[in-house]
């Protein structure tokens, strides 16, 4: 499911069928994208009813305006971008969108690095991925969103920028800032190994 690949023939055919009013193709599009769209929306706002509503609107509008739609280069990219707009518009009407408090701070961890880190055992590696994921979910919202779009959903940087309505350089900065914070999780590693010896 990589967005950084040219539109597959299959996807192109499906899109054409959909545009010409083929309901089967419409159902297929829904089935193919609803899960990842929901996941993306959910991480913009945990208000599930709002996300579901936005997805419904998205597909309803998609069908209604199908004749005006262009031959998009990536259906996935198009849907993500539209969903994001819809969620932001809807949350203005709801006016109760609860944003996750922005905390830029991960706990300060003493910087101890050793060559030991290179010999990462499988358990430790899994533990480390968990730590990283925990750190990821503590990132400020926009950093999380950019990281997710780039590495989870597989969009290219320019696509991430366009989805988030930012320029590419700002997205670059955003991602670099979050990576710096994620790197702190690595400093946990020697600490973890230390703990293991005593448990």
């Amino acid at each position, binding site marked *: 499911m990589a967005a950084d690949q040219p539109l597959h023939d299959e996807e192109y055919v499906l899109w054409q069928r959909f545009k010409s009013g083929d309901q*089967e193709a419409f159902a297929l599009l829904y089935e193919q994208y609803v899960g990842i769209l929901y996941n993306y929306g959910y991480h913009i706002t945990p208000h599930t*009813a709002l996300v579901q509503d936005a997805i419904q609107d998205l597909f309803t509008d998609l069908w209604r305006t199908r004749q005006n739609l262009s031959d998009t280069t990536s259906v996935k990219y198009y849907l993500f971008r539209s969903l994001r707009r819809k969620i932001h518009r809807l949350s203005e009407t709801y006016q109760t969108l609860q944003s996750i408090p922005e905390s830029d701070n991960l706990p300060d961890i003493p910087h101890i690095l050793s060559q030991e880190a290179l010999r990462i055992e499988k358990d430790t590696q899994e533990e480390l991925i968990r730590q990283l994921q925990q750190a990821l979910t503590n990132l400020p919202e926009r950093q999380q969103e950019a990281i*997710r779009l780039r*590495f989870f959903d597989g969009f290219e940087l320019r696509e991430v920028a366009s989805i988030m309505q930012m320029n590419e350089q700002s997205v670059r900065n955003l991602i670099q800032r979050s*990576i710096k914070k994620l790197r702190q999780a690595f400093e946990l590693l020697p600490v973890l190994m230390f703990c293991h010896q005593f448990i």
Partner: protein
Amino acid sequence: MNYSSFKSEDFLMDPAFVQWIKQDKYNDFWENYQKKHPHQALEIQRARLIIQAAATLPVAPLSDDSRIGMWQNVQQKVVSNTAYEAEVPTRHTPFRSWVWWAAASIVLVSGWLGWQALRPPQAVSTAYEQLMDQTTAENQKLIQHTNASNRPMLISLPDGSSALLQKDSRISYSAQEYGTSKREVLLSGEAFFEVVKDPQVPFYVFANELVTKVLGTSFTVQAYEADREVNVFVKTGKVSVYTNKEFETRAKPGKPEKEAVVLSPNQLITLHRESLRLSRIAMESSKLRVPQTQTSFEFDDTPVTQIFKLLEETYGISIVYDQQRLSACKITASLTDEPLPEKIRLLCQGLGASYTISDKSIHIYSNGCN
């Protein structure tokens, strides 16, 4: 490209590197590169782990019921606006992928629903539909949830209140107005409500011929179209009930609201729909699904797994968590009539855990306690 001075963050910004990790592309190049630049092994390993961590983040689960329900809503909206043919034309194009089968089953269900929607309106529409018509007449956008499954469905309302929707039940509310100027929901069927306190904005449930008004409390309303009665049971707090008629003609601001019948905790009131008479009946004789527990949850250094189990039993919603990892976690907390999503939020705050809430289940993500 000269990578020799690259740190992990530089590798992460490089498309070719990301494609190598995620899609196994350019394998030869990167393996060769690693051999020649052993001093960068740690940076490469870090970049790889960050990509792997981000790419395997837990997915917010979308239940089958929601997925199908949302599709049905899309179909209904589309039907009401265009000449969308209800019947899906049969095609003989050979589709082999499972996706097609999944989609095909949805089309079948929705095709049937589409047909239902296109049926000429019946002579008498149901109370719920009448209520919906009144609301939609004012140009309101309604959000509707339908529980067609056998398990209760947890609906989070925009103000933080929640409704535990029982089977064969529907609930809807205005997208624009709910939570701002008023808190009004329409119900057909049965739901257990936990309402966030807000004395400025009362919470109303319109169900068949009965209106229930609360300021912040928990209670169950049972109002199935086919039943001859509407029941309201109060678990905590105070609840006022009116018949629709009383509600429309009720006292204007400043005058006392004489018609309201006020219920206290553990009281049940029944409206006989034909005679529109209200009567209190004994709790034992009703079949209401009220979460059967004490009204407050007091936990003193209690294992959190035990708390989750209690909440699961109480609400009939499944809570998914790593039992082993949470086995050492204990919590001291006093929970009362907060809505379930708020209870979960508080518990997770205490645990330092994150969580996701969907209709059917709650997922807890935690690294455990040591």
